[in-house]
């Protein structure tokens, strides 16, 4: 994933590709082989544990970390950071996106500065955020929020702008009120693009969290990982990374579910 993810404005997919079920078991061959190879390298001593722990050790450590509650606690802290950061950035991105999408003046005043700011790689803002917010929770939330607000704004704004003028015209002649035009025509037509923005925003949120948690964390997954590094516990580092990955996959999956539900009007 590139650093300035906030600048990404992808096109929504026009059709959900059908997963090819038949080849699914075959696709597992090489990943499983790689894990086996990794285990073999660890067992024979080719891969020393202070560089990378073996898969079995990682699994065992994961079990311990879960059992003694460390992982659960770290998980809860990190999830909380993403949640509140996302909420903050989400509100800002959506409100600004709506204002600039729905009103000419809003667009004239809001869009130029946002378009300029979006070119900044938001992870590069860390030094400023530390100066502004210190090294507590605030810079971490701010980083997540900044990473979330931009893709949401950009895609919501673009989605609204892409509304088919033909539909708006039809709605006018058919006597829709202004509110009805916004609710039934403009906003629904911005939904596919906005969901793309949501997906990007979630990816950026996790990335921002991981980077943000490098700032003097005293709790959370980042703390768990950094702490483990000091004691050369590569097994715990890997556990932390896997949890990050699973979190990312889970949210992506949830967005897919949401997409399927919200976009079910699309022809199959």
């Amino acid at each position, binding site marked *: 994933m590139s650093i300035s993810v906030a600048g990404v404005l992808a096109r929504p997919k026009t059709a959900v590709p059908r997963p090819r079920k038949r080849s699914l078991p075959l696709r597992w061959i090489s990943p499983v082989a790689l894990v086996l190879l990794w285990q073999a390298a660890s067992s024979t001593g080719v891969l020393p544990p202070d560089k990378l722990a073996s898969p079995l050790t990682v699994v065992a450590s994961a079990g311990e970390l879960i059992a003694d509650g460390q992982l659960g606690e770290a998980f809860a802290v990190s999830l909380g950071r993403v949640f509140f950061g996302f909420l903050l950035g989400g509100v800002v991105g959506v409100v600004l996106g709506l204002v600039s999408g729905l009103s000419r003046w809003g667009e004239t005043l809001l869009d130029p500065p946002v378009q300029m700011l979006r070119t900044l790689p938001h992870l590069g803002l860390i030094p400023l955020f530390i100066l502004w917010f210190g090294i507590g929770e605030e810079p971490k939330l701010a980083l997540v929020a900044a990473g979330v607000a931009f893709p949401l704004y950009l895609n919501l704004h673009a989605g609204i702008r892409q509304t088919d003028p*033909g*539909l708006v*015209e*039809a*709605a*006018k*002649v*058919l*006597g*829709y*009120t202004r509110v*009805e035009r916004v609710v*039934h*025509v403009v906003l*629904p*037509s911005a*939904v596919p693009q906005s969901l793309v923005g949501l997906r990007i925003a979630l990816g950026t949120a996790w990335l921002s969290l991981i980077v943000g948690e490098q700032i003097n964390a005293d709790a959370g997954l980042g703390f768990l990982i950094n702490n483990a590094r000091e004691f050369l516990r590569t097994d715990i580092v890997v556990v932390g990374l896997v949890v990050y990955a699973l979190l990312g996959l889970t949210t992506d999956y949830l967005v897919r579910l949401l997409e399927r539900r919200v976009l*079910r*009007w*699309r*022809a199959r």
Partner: protein
Amino acid sequence: MASAVSIRGLHKAFGSRVVLDGVDLEIAPGEFVALLGRSGCGKSTLLRILAGLDSDVRGSFSVPGTVSIAFQQPRLLPWRRVWRNVSLGLHGVDGREVARKALDEVRLPDHADAWPLTLSGGEAQRVSLARALVRQPDVLLLDEPFGALDALTRLAMHRLVEDLWEAHRPAVLLVTHDVDEALLLADRIVVLDEGRVVASHFVDLPRPRRRASFVEQRVRVLADLGVDDAQAA
């Protein structure tokens, strides 16, 4: 009785390009008028003006009653089910019930809960007609509503439009490129050229009409459109 549509000296220009240059047209209540003319002569522009979508004009026009329109593309909201498409924008009625009746009328009783993107072109166009009609318009504007349909579907739509018109009696202004379609449906055929109405024919034939009955009229209308001689007949 006041006209359903009354247009006097209507001018419309896009920048320096003059599209309508003094259009005069009266349409009586319940009258079915077909508007013919070359591509680009301003037919859609005229309809858009009457529908209130373009007010940057000179001259005067009045459409005292309610106006409804069906475009060449059905322009349904893909994210609202068919019945919602029909009833949205109506206020103070039971939308579901109104839509059910209208869909019955356009012979789509089983598609109320379908998503628009699952409809065929002809079905979508019928929904668009139902949507125009539930507003009980005094004036119904039709901008080549059958242009994108295949020949067979088009024949079925002609019958449908005639039936609907006879049942509701709105004044209709139908834009079409198809002279036969105009002769089949219209009380009067109006030809637009160079920004003006250059010809107007009454079609005094009993309904339902057959093609054989309007051979002579066809030649005259084609002549007005600049297509001469009998080969067209």
